[in-house]
């Protein structure tokens, strides 16, 4: 069963990728979809066995990968609750996206390639979540990065897609620079790479310090911070987030699968997997919490101002990832994983719904050119409502349970950082509700702002696109109250088994269940409602209000609209500088300095001295005679002095 849960997507990818032209579009779609669906079924089975029935978690060794001295790592599949949860999330969402793509990409000429990339991505993600050591995790980690690059760049003729893909790869690589060094630090500290061995070794090395560049640093904290840097890149946390909005250049199913539900949550998964390590590095956890909270806030503010429907959802994703990270920062790993799971459902739903809107609007993504289409595409409209309700944390939808748990846990952590994250989280919750309904109102309500050609063409998506949306909608409604008991409720200890680890004095989830003022749990819901009301006022009741407010705070608005000017800053700091340095090294360093002082100088020297020597050979007898006389004089003088 474990084999079916992991390998069919690889098989599908290889067949569709290499033999796509032979088996045709339909064949490729069949091969890849059936592969992923088989994996999804197998992973549900595994989930019930491991998570619910608590059968023994186990590791299946395949074969050796690295073996150099004590640096040893195998290809292996690890199955415990954490893996099982991720397997279900990845395979289920991936299956939905595969099926949806059959409809969404029906006009594209490269269907086999697209399906192959999707399946390859799924496989890499599965390798990541089943990894039993840091190296294989890194393999999956970079593998999903590659697939993300390929899929962002799927329409490779678009220069904007090319640029976005390169940006995504390079920014992720910058994060992986940290990840790689983090792996090495942990390896040197503990001498092993397998998770269980690392976890066993960590408590005894937790306090070790070393000197680096004259500073004394805690090695474990440094290792955790480096690993977190990797997570920041993959999960688009503040500072390394600039690639995610640009990644929306890819086809919408890609955004749903990779840039909302699965790949971007890999950072959260990694930190949860390494919870036995991070628990012993409280300073690193504090940094995680702060970065997560700031991301949640900044992304939400940007989300308020964007007009591209996909970018709004992208910033919303970034903001929700921030929630997950600050949950981890207060040791609420189970809450973070719970939110990861529910978020996967409703965010994939929102993205695919947005795709359905874009499909209906003949490719238009700008919300300013939409409006008034609620009646024309009622099913999509209803599904977007469900997704938004879940996202905003309206009671009994999935997001309500998970987001509340995160906020309660951060309040319960009882630290200054916990308080900080709680209040930032509340602010972000208002904005989340506001921009979600801003999106709904701008897209579906009001007068149509598109031209009549587009409007005539507006149509509901075909069944092959709606069926996956319905599946995800069911998840967005039910995942919360079904999962609550297992993920973060009283059954959580048995459910997670040994796959998550929390030091007993840092167990914020447990505190949240017992000693917490009532208002702490209710406030998120209340502010969510306020956000929805504000959106209603600003975009339905008084449509002139937004522009009035914008006029008042023009500079702030411009700053936020320009995404806090991160792109300009990085462009100035890194891109332009890199090109300038490159040119300087080449034209000055190589051509002038090295060549000039080295080979060219040597050849010039030879040439000049040869010329000088040749000057002496004038051919005139009296010159030679003169030189001989001088020489003789010197010789005689020499002997006489001696």
């Amino acid at each position: 069963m474990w084999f079916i849960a992991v390998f069919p997507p690889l098989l599908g990818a290889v067949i569709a990728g290499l033999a796509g032209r032979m088996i045709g579009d339909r064949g490729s779609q069949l091969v890849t979809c059936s592969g992923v669906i088989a994996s999804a079924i197998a992973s549900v089975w595994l989930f019930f066995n491991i998570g619910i029935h608590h059968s023994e978690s186990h590791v299946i060794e395949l074969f050796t990968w690295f073996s150099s001295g004590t640096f040893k790592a195998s290809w292996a599949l690890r199955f415990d609750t954490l893996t099982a949860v991720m397997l279900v999330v990845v395979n289920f969402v991936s299956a939905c996206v595969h099926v949806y793509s059959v409809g969404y990409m029906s006009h594209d000429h490269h269907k086999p390639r697209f399906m192959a990339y999707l399946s390859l991505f799924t496989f890499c993600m599965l390798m990541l979540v089943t990894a039993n050591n840091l190296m294989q995790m890194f393999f999956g980690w970079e593998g999903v990065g590659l697939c993300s690059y390929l899929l962002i760049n799927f329409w490779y003729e678009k220069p904007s897609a090319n640029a976005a893909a390169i940006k995504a790869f390079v920014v992720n690589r910058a994060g992986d620079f940290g990840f790689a060094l983090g792996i090495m630090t942990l390896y040197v500290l503990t001498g092993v790479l397998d998770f269980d061995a690392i976890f066993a070794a960590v408590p005894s090395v937790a306090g070790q310090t070393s000197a680096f560049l004259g500073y004394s640093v805690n090695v474990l904290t440094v290792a955790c911070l480096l690993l977190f840097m990797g997570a920041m890149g993959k999960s688009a946390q503040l500072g390394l987030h600039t690639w995610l909005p640009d990644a929306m250049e890819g086809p919408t199913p890609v955004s749903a699968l990779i840039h909302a539900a699965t790949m971007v949550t890999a950072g959260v998964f990694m930190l949860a997997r390494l919870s036995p390590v991070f628990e012993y590095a409280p300073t690193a956890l504090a940094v995680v919490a702060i970065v997560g909270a700031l991301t949640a806030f900044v992304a939400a503010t940007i989300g308020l101002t964007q007009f591209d429907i996909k970018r709004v959802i992208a910033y919303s994703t970034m903001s929700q990832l921030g929630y997950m990270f600050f949950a981890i920062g207060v040791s609420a790993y189970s809450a973070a994983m719970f939110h990861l799971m529910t978020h996967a459902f409703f965010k994939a739903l929102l993205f695919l719904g947005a795709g359905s809107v874009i499909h209906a609007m003949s490719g238009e993504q700008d919300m300013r050119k939409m409006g008034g289409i609620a009646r024309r595409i009622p099913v999509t409209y209803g599904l977007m409502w469900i997704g938004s309700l879940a996202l905003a944390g309206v009671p009994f939808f999935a997001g309500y349970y998970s987001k509340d748990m995160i906020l309660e846990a951060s309040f319960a952590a009882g630290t200054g950082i916990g308080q900080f994250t709680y209040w930032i989280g509340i602010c972000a919750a208002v904005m989340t509700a506001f921009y979600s309904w801003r999106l709904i109102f701008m897209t579906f309500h009001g007068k149509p702002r598109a031209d009549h050609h587009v409007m005539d063409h507006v149509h509901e998506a075909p069944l092959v696109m709606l069926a996956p949306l319905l599946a995800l909608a069911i998840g967005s409604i039910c995942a919360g109250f079904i999962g609550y008991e297992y993920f973060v409720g009283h059954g959580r200890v048995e459910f997670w088994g040994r796959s998550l680890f929390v030091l007993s004095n840092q167990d914020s989830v447990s505190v949240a269940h017992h000693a917490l003022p009532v208002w702490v749990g209710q406030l998120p819901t209340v502010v969510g409602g306020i956000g929805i009301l504000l959106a209603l006022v600003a975009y339905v009741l008084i449509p002139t209000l937004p522009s009035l407010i914008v006029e008042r705070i023009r500079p702030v608005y411009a700053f936020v609209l320009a995404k806090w000017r991160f792109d300009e800053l990085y462009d100035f700091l890194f891109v332009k500088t890199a090109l300038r340095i490159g040119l300087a090294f080449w034209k000055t360093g190589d051509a002038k300095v090295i060549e000039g002082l080295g080979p060219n100088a040597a050849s010039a020297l030879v040439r000049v001295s040869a010329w000088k020597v040749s000057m002496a050979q004038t051919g005139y007898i009296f010159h030679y005679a003169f030189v001989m006389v001088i020489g003789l004089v010197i010789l005689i003088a020499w002997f006489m002095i001696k």
Partner: protein
Amino acid sequence: MGGFPILSVTTFLPLSGVLLIFLFHKRSADNVDVARHIALWTSLATFVASLVMLRGFDSGSSSFQMVELVPWMPSLGIAYHVGVDGISVLFIVLSAFLTPLCIISSWASVKSRVNEYMVSFLILETFMIGTFCALDLLQFYIFFEGVLLPMYLIIGVWGGSNRVYAAYKFFIYTLFGSVFMLIAFLAIHFLAGTTDIVELFEKKQEFSFSVQAILWLAFFSSFAVKVPMWPVHTWLPDAHVEAPTAGSVILAGVLLKMGGYGFLRLSIPLLPDATSYFAPLVFSLSIVALVYASYIALVQEDMKKLIAYSSVAHMGYVTIGIFTLNVQGVEGAIFQMLSHGIVSSALFLCVGTVYDRLHTREISRYGGLATNMPRYALIFMVMMLASVGLPGTSGFVGEFLILVGAFQANVLVAALTATGLVLGCMYMLWLYRRVIFGKLYKTDCQTMSDLGLREVFVFAPLVLLVFWMGIYPVSFSKVSSASVLHLINNYELALSSPSESSDQAGLPIRTDDRQVVAQALWRPVDRERAEGLGGAH
């Protein structure tokens, strides 16, 4: 001894092809296919011979195997002495593997003086394999330098428009370094009374530190040019740009590795104290090379020049790995050399493929090739990713092991080296984007055809190897591991033995001593101090 002389056969088999081409010279004057076929089949036979050799190789042993020893100049103690160990054996296979690919790839693109071209390649092959087998300093020198001649001709006769300049530059640069190496060899002969490498190892010849330092610098001047290290790298871009495709393949695939091999074979075991003393110098130059070449590669307009600079960066990894002097670093360096031999060869072949069609290496002339050359785009993508060091490809394994080795030697070196992860992907992605992606609107690009059968045959084994080495690297690294361990143990033994010169400023840290490593983690601490800290702990 006494067995079948497989090493000599592998070394000199290509020369039989040369002989055949001379014999059929008259008849093949108007039918050049004869020379092509002779060259192809001899080089394939050589490859088979090298595989036979690999099969007979016992990877459990760290000593020299398949040794042949024939007196040559007995009065001077110089002999024909060949043998392989885990460090050299794979390089022989690599050389024998790449030569037939070169010959196939120049099947159609080389039209003038085909006989001479094939002869040059076969002679080159003999010299390359001879270098890796040689166990006598003089013999090593002859083969090592002999490589220059055919390569000089290949660049100078069949090269691009500025070929003569590039050929001279290549020749003079490399010869300049080697002169010092020859003097060093002579000095060793005078001091130790022998030029036999095995004998020198066994005698545990202890040179005083100052002698070691001078000899080391003399070796360095030769090997550093070959690698090439910064700042003596400027011959490489010119040589690559002007060389014909197959010439670039051999240059990047094998010739650059001779520098790294020289460090491993001669500098480290013969001159351990100096190696330890100069390691920081090598680290600094390598890191500069890595960063410097990556930035330059970013702004190149010429495809071959870009890949040439990327070679400089990748070889920077190799020299760092070698001088970490621990298991992961050295194994990683050997692996990286093999991987780079495959990947850079394939990249040069990729450039050659489009050069054959459009006769330009200028990046801006291309664009949108994914549309009409999907097979090419796929293969180029695989090689680009291997060059970037994506896990699962061969490039990752060596790079990561080197980083792990560097991390144990000196954290700062590792951190600076790791910037290559980011810098390296920028220029390759940018190259790929400009050539393969974008809209296919240039008319001359539209007429380009996808890979033909012959080209697929050339690329297929390379692609296979990239994945094989990336997913199951053990089948390659286990060949060298015993010899690497032996090398490092001997090195550490030599350092720790009390000699008048023992200079302990270097950074070797025993990998098995976790406590010391953890304590010394963040600073290149010398060993006594590290142990002091460990004891206090």
